[in-house]
């Protein structure tokens, strides 16, 4: 009975959504309500107002910088909460199942990982730094670095990879996303504009395009580094094993 009610509710909801979707203006129609107000301004002004070739990055980091800053703060607070729940690892006691697996990884796999992981990190650096002129950016690049750390940890074990990126490196860098964003915002005030002004009024007009580009890249780097470090920390905290946890469970 309960299941039947739920099914009926879902069918009604699906019918309603499909009805609404059928009445939506067609995608890509220039007469869409979304395409008549702010979008033309963004598309026409992004090139000369934000000095970023990728309009998406221009919108996210410049036009809607406040939104993105709030978003980054929320995401990294959530990640910090996850880390607080999992608990940080203690120095010298870190080990995981992958470290004492009955099947040690072979020479072929080790060589390939040692060869490929730097290339993956290189690609993620490209993604972060090119976020300003091509698709990509801090979030994506950070996630790719996290993925490369997952590969490395799976093959070489938690001990090796936590020695490569020790906690005293990760811990200060985890907040770099929010810190960099706020710092760039405050620097905009120091430069004579409002909070999060990239084109500082006190700087000569000829230098402003380069300044805007470099500040955008700086924010991307901060977000990428923070994301990568937080993902790595979460991975390490999730796979590490400690005796206390085993006793409680």
């Amino acid at each position, binding site marked *: 009975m309960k299941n039947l009610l739920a099914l009926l509710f879902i069918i009604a909801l699906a019918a309603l959504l499909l009805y609404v979707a059928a009445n939506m203006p067609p*995608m890509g129609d220039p007469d869409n309500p979304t395409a008549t107000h702010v979008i033309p301004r963004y598309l026409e002004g992004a090139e000369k107002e934000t000095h970023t070739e990728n309009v*998406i990055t221009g919108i996210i980091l410049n036009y809607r910088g406040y939104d993105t800053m709030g978003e980054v703060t929320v995401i990294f607070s959530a990640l910090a909460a996850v880390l607080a729940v999992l608990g940080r690892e203690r120095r010298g006691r870190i080990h995981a*199942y992958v470290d004492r697996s009955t099947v040690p990884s072979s020479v072929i796999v080790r060589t390939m990982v040692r060869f490929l992981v730097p290339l993956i990190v290189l690609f993620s650096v490209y*993604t972060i730094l090119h976020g300003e002129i091509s*698709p*990509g*950016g801090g*979030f*994506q690049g950070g*996630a*790719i670095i*996290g*993925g490369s750390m*997952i590969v490395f940890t799976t093959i070489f074990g938690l001990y090796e990879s936590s020695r490569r990126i020790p906690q005293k490196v990760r811990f200060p860098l985890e907040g770099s996303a929010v810190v960099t964003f706020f710092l760039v915002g405050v620097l905009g005030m120091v430069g004579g504009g409002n909070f999060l002004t990239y084109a500082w009024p006190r700087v000569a007009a000829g230098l402003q395009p380069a300044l805007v580009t470099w500040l955008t890249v700086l924010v991307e780097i901060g977000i990428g580094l923070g994301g990568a470090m937080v*993902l790595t920390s*979460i*991975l390490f905290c*999730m*796979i590490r094993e400690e005796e206390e946890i085993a006793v409680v469970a």
Partner: protein
Amino acid sequence: MGTALNLVFIALLVATALLAVFARDLLAAVIIFSVYSLIMALMWQRLQAPDLALTEAAVGAGVTTVLFVVTIFKTRRREEEEKE
């Protein structure tokens, strides 16, 4: 042609979502969910949102899958049978 491809993608999305919910084997559910993320990334690319496609492919299909697998590894693989 484009519409047909979109319909195929949407059908696959619905199928993978349902399979991921109903799979008894949680490891299979996680793998199906990563397939779902991959199809979603293709959909984003078709909707001309390459930034989102990159994010979905890296986070959805890459990182979260591994984190789910680690979680399954630490708990149980099978969903508990319903007790009558």
